[in-house]
């Protein structure tokens, strides 16, 4: 899976990103005020129903919770050791609802819609001199850099494997850093040569 977004048509997809974010934010605040098992059971059923409303591939996305299972186990053990096992169960239920609800936004919202909805939160960055236009350029650069960095690392690793026979080593990290930094310098120069971010057409 390269992206978390589930490409599909559904009523949740049609809902504006800002509304979804607001609803989940309010739900999260309310969830922290509650500690009733029955309400949480209802909440869990509600979240499952929302995933189910997306169809089969929606239900399949419930598996994201697997990433938290080990953590939940540790929380339960720690609660059990502190003699509050029941509270532990309530906490795990609350966190499950919280996590699944927030995750649902990402499944049903395209990246650029999400970006637009979240932009107001990043207004304070202007105090540090980050203009929205530059912010957008920064985002684009990261999206291009990330796969490229992995490629650089893969090339170094193949060369290392050919020389030594072993697959991976921390010794690769420093040459990787230097290669990658050179690349970023080249990009900075290329950007400057083209008139900088001010020279980019919209």
């Amino acid at each position, binding site marked *: 899976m390269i992206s*978390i977004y589930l490409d599909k048509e559904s009523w949740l997809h049609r809902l504006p990103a800002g509304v979804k974010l607001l609803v989940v934010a309010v739900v999260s605040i309310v969830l922290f005020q509650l500690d009733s098992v029955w309400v949480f059971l209802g909440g869990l059923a509600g979240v499952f129903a929302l995933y189910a409303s997306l169809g089969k591939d929606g239900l399949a996305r419930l598996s994201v919770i697997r990433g938290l299972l080990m953590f939940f186990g540790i929380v339960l053990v720690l609660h059990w050791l502190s003699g509050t096992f029941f509270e*532990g169960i309530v906490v795990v239920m609350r966190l499950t609802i919280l996590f699944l609800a927030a995750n649902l936004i990402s499944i049903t919202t395209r990246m650029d819609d999400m970006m637009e909805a979240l932009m107001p939160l990043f207004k304070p*960055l202007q105090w540090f001199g980050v203009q929205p236009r530059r912010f957008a350029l920064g985002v684009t650069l990261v999206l291009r850099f990330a796969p*490229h960095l992995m490629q650089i690392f893969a090339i170094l690793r193949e060369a290392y494997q050919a020389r030594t026979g072993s697959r991976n080593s921390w010794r690769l990290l*420093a040459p990787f850093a230097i290669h990658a930094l050179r690349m970023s310098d080249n990009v*900075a120069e290329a950007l400057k040569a083209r008139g900088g971010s001010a020279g980019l057409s919209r």
Partner: protein
Amino acid sequence: MADRSLVHIAFYAALIAALGLVPPVAIPWVAGVPITAQSLGVMLAGVMLGPVRGALAVLLFLFLVGIGAPYIVLAGGRSGMGVFASPSVGFLIGFPVGAFVAGWVMQSTKDMNVLVSSAIAAAIGGILVVYALGIPGVAMMTDLSLAAAAVGSAVYIPGDLIKVAITAIIAQTVARGLPSAILSRS
């Protein structure tokens, strides 16, 4: 802010993402706790870029995780808004603050050897600060006492110490091979 700074910030944001995709290594002498390379990226961003740019790089990374950008994931492949509703949210908040502090320490120890100063910076910013925010975060999300949350989080500290050492070695190597890249000191 210069375009060059923007490229560097984007670069470290991407580096943090790329390191999150490196498969975790289990350390046998601490009950096989998986260590991931991601917080190495946070330490490096602070140490190499300095406080403001380092923190901005981490924030840019977290923003892209939040909007569910392709390839930009937390260690373990997690992405999307769910990560900010997960129990480790305190650590995520600690990341940019930690990078800021690491960068600040690096800057204020300019007359020290790069190896020593980057190790101190990474330990204070990348461990002390990150855990100082992460542990209360876990306690708040899970209703555990601070002590219990600290016990639960402490298993990752040995792995983080290894990352401090790697950060220092990388900073030292880069200081020799490409000194202009240690922006926190220029």
